[in-house]
């Protein structure tokens, strides 16, 4: 295979990095995230230095029994980490980047693959290089051996190079599977959801190591472990010179082979015919002939049309609603606790009632104007009124959200130690809060509409509610829920403190929540209707 043209590789890498930097710089949220990450970056560098010094000292003092064994695990981790990161980035986004057609008709595809790989390598080095370099130097300093610092650096650099290239190849391999498999193309959303849920379950249950451990063990036992011999060659740890030499010599050979595989896989992906996901809906599967006749019967036609459209769009592109699952991250602790202990904490049912209401409002009504996207000019030039339009969005969410909210909070309340009265109040909140939340969401979304698309995954853009609407809605709903939540979770201490029966605290809290919720929902809904009726581009 011919080698890529180094000038093309340099130009493509440089342009790609410049483009990414400008895109990050122009996005305030990304700049803020970068600032936050920088703090952790400095923290990681500090930990690397302290850890490196300690490891170097322990190594020279002979305090570690099997240093080579640990170093081989380290080498395995140093390969798996960049391979995973770069593999994910390549599979998710890099495989089909902007201006692809233009570049593929300008330079050979191996030059493009080389340029993108170089950009990824530089990105990885900038992102993780400094802590690694400092840690390597600290190991040498701690051991009092400059030669050890040099070999650790050399081994880390070589292994990271191989890890990045292997990840690049694996990412394109995954891209090919996604692009060519009819099964994957057809069930892409379900498979993605399955992976997400599986990952969350592993993280939430603290079992991620059960998956990682065998991978690291296998990599450690492979020739990757030889890099440990290279890294610790100057130390007195019985490193095998032949293995160290093999690692050194093998790096460019394996690197070239991995790049060759990457370029081949990239070419197969870029020039190949891709399987297509579902594009058609037979009439018999459409809502018109089935569900909506029963669900939206009796509604004015424009309202039913809006509700049906909202369902269809959500079902066909559920990834757009992924943000509705975000608060579940906060409930993971509670849920793990419930599973592990086999009992439901008393705080969980009221929180589930709050989440049910929040999700009901967030799913369809948190960006009522912006979510219409390019269709908005036509929607507002039909005779549909703001009241009809908003009603359609509200109904779309409530038909699903309210029963689910009642069911989940009700079952949790029944299984918890909440008394019967508190459980009934929780169910009442789960029943009556969702419509109020939906109205509140419509108001927040109309106050801060968002018409521009955002990246919801690395490869998918969609219009999602604005952060301001998200924050305002969550804050106001959370405040409105507080009396009911506290009245249920802390009825006894609150009752003692104010000298009333705990049941009165629970009922009073729920009543206060529903009254406050109704008041803000009324104002918010009126605002949303007004914004729709008076909408101008």
């Amino acid at each position, binding site marked *: 295979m011919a080698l890529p043209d180094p000038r093309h590789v340099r130009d493509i890498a440089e342009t790609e990095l410049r483009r990414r930097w400008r895109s990050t710089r122009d996005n305030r949220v990304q700049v803020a995230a970068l600032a936050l990450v920088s703090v952790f970056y400095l923290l990681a560098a500090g930990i690397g230095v302290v850890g490196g010094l300690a490891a170097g000292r322990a190594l020279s003092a002979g305090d570690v029994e099997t240093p080579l064994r640990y170093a081989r695990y380290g080498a395995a981790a140093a390969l798996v980490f960049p391979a995973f990161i770069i593999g994910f980035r390549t599979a998710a986004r890099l495989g089909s980047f902007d201006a692809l057609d233009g570049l593929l008709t300008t330079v050979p595809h191996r030059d493009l693959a080389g340029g993108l790989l170089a950009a990824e390598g530089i990105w990885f080095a900038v992102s993780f290089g400094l802590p690694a370099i400092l840690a390597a130097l600290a190991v040498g300093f701690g051991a009092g051996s400059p030669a050890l610092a040099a070999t650790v650096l050399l081994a880390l650099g070589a292994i990271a190079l191989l890890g990045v290239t292997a990840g690049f190849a694996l990412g394109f391999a995954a891209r090919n599977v996604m692009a060519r498999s009819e099964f994957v193309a057809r069930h892409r959303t379900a498979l993605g959801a399955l992976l997400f849920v599986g990952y969350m379950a592993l993280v939430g249950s603290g079992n991620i190591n059960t998956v990682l451990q065998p991978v690291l063990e296998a990599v450690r036992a492979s020739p990757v472990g030889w890099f440990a011999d290279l890294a610790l060659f100057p130390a007195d740890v019985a490193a095998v010179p032949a293995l160290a030499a093999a690692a050194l010599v093998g790096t460019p050979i394996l690197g070239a082979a991995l790049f060759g595989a990457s370029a081949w896989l990239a070419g197969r992906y870029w020039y190949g015919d891709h399987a*297509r996901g*579902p*594009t*058609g*809906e*037979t*009439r018999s599967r*459409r809502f*018109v002939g089935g569900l909506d006749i029963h669900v939206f019967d009796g509604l*004015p*036609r*424009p309202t*039913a*049309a*809006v509700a*049906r*459209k909202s369902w*269809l*769009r959500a079902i*066909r*592109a559920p990834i757009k609603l992924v943000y509705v699952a975000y608060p579940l991250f906060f409930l993971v602790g509670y849920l793990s606790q419930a599973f592990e202990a086999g009992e439901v904490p008393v705080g969980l049912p009221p929180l589930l009632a709050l989440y049910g209401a929040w999700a009901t409002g967030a799913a369809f009504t948190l960006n009522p104007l912006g979510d219409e*996207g*390019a*269709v*908005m*000019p*036509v*929607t*507002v*030039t*039909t*005779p*549909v009124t703001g009241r009809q339009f908003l009603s359609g969005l509200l109904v779309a969410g409530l038909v699903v959200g309210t029963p689910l909210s009642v069911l989940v909070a009700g079952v949790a309340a029944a299984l918890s130690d909440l008394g019967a009265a508190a459980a009934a109040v929780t169910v009442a909140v789960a029943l009556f809060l969702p419509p109020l939340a939906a109205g509140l969401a419509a108001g927040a979304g109309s106050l801060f509409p968002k018409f521009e698309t955002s990246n919801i995954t690395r490869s998918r853009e969609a219009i999602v509610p604005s952060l301001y609407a998200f924050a305002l809605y969550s804050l106001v709903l959370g405040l409105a829920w507080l009396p009911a939540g506290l009245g249920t979770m802390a009825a006894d201490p609150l009752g003692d403190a104010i000298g009333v029966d705990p049941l009165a605290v629970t009922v009073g809290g729920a009543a206060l929540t529903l009254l406050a919720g109704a008041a803000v929902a009324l104002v918010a809904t009126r605002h949303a209707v007004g914004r729709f*009726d008076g909408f*101008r*581009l």
Partner: protein
Amino acid sequence: MSSQAIETAALTKRYGDTVAVENLELWIPQGSVYGFLGPNGAGKTTTMRMLTTLIEPTSGSATVAGHSIENRNEVVEHIGYLPEEPPLHEELTGREQMEYIAGLRDIPDDEAAARIDDLFERFDLDEDADKRISAYSKGMKQKAGIVQAILHEPSVVFLDEPTSGLDPRAARTVRDTISSLAEEDATVFLSTHILPVVDELADRVGVLYDGSLVTEGAPEDLKTRAETGEEGTLEDVFLEVTREVGEV
């Protein structure tokens, strides 16, 4: 009530110091096709947006289908609009998109289904009606956008570049549709850069330049009025008028 389908009086739109449309005076009778020409940035889309109630004028007034554009509820009952980018939800099928718009316009289901079938057949979309719009080509999306604009049989139709991205057969269908709309007494306000389309279809042509209407008339009159002395094409007229005004 005005007797004209579209009538504007000193219609003006400013964005800060920038004048997008200035003192626009239009009288467009019912049942006619009005070709609205102008270079990029002349103010054509801004004019269409004012007439469709999507933006408010800074000053002046206008009526569409006899109703002031200040009264959106009245105006929207009578208009259909195709913006430059076809306004479609990619997740829906073509038929579902039309059913959505028909629902918003409160057209009874049976009536809507019959019109959708008829228009999809006319625009050669019947075999793709139950495919998702995300799988449509640019031309198919454009045709779906036109179907959507005329689904409710409006009396005034605003079409912004309706033949953009269409193959010759589809472009022919659009031209035939515009002609038949006019024959059925609808008014078509047609903005396009494809001058032969305007030449073929328009009863009157207006040329907008820098927000002002610089010339107006029947295509034949404009062509003979061209300073070439001989009968030129509409393209000659367009280039001559916009060059003259640009020099001034």
